[in-house]
């Protein structure tokens, strides 16, 4: 079986669920952000692979990837600003300790 769409998609699926595992197990905001970055990257691989293997005459998938990368950069910057603000008020970035609005 030559390397094709299925191989790349299964790779990106595995990467996505590695990110999901990290998102479930981590309790530190920065590491949760890292897991989200892994998930966004696997989505990018998906878009590019579908573009390359199924619709080689178009370049729409490439543009989706470019815009996802841009938005991921903005999202990471805002998330880190929020993390720094949380650290100032709680002296910790553990999600278990930011529970004022929980009850």
């Amino acid at each position: 079986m030559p390397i094709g769409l299925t191989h790349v998609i299964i790779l990106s699926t595995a990467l996505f669920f590695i990110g999901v595992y990290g998102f479930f197990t981590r309790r530190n905001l920065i590491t949760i952000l890292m897991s989200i970055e892994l998930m966004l990257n696997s989505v990018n691989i998906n878009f590019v692979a579908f573009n390359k293997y199924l619709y080689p005459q178009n370049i729409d998938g490439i543009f989706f990837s470019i815009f996802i990368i841009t938005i991921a950069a903005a999202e990471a910057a805002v998330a880190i600003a929020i993390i720094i603000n949380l650290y100032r008020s709680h002296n910790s970035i553990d999600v278990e300790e930011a529970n004022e609005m929980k009850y």
Partner: protein
Amino acid sequence: MNAQEIIFYLIAAYILGTGIMAVTTNRIFRAAIWLLFSLVGIASLYFWMDLEFIAAIQIVVYVGGIVVLIIFSVFLTQKAGDEMPVALKSRTLPAAFASLFALAFTANILLHHNFGSASNVMFDPNMDKIGMAMLNTGDGGFILPFETVSMLLLAAMIGCIVIAMKIKKEATQ
């Protein structure tokens, strides 16, 4: 097995191995470095798929931007050598089970799905084409999302400054 397949499997093993290390290691700084390796691996996957432009963006934005930002915030919020508390077994086991089950389920569907075949056009995403489509106002052009994303970046930049700004006590009174 030809060279292209061997290189694909090497890249895949590299990405997944470093990705697993990034979500399981107990030291937060090492997690950031493993994430950096994983992102470089994804850039090499883009090179493998003949997408030099996306690979360059991946390296510039993710490796040069986001990971550096993450490392900065690690240094701002905790001691780099500190170990995080080990995750509870009651949390990791269900998470691992759920992820593995979902992976097996999705992979099963993907392996049995026929995606159809592509048209015989050569995939040639050169820079000219991408640049022309990016600023094209006509059919299939991307000028509107391009401008929207530039506004979003500006808003995010101002928002970051406002959120992370330290308000002095005297100024508020």
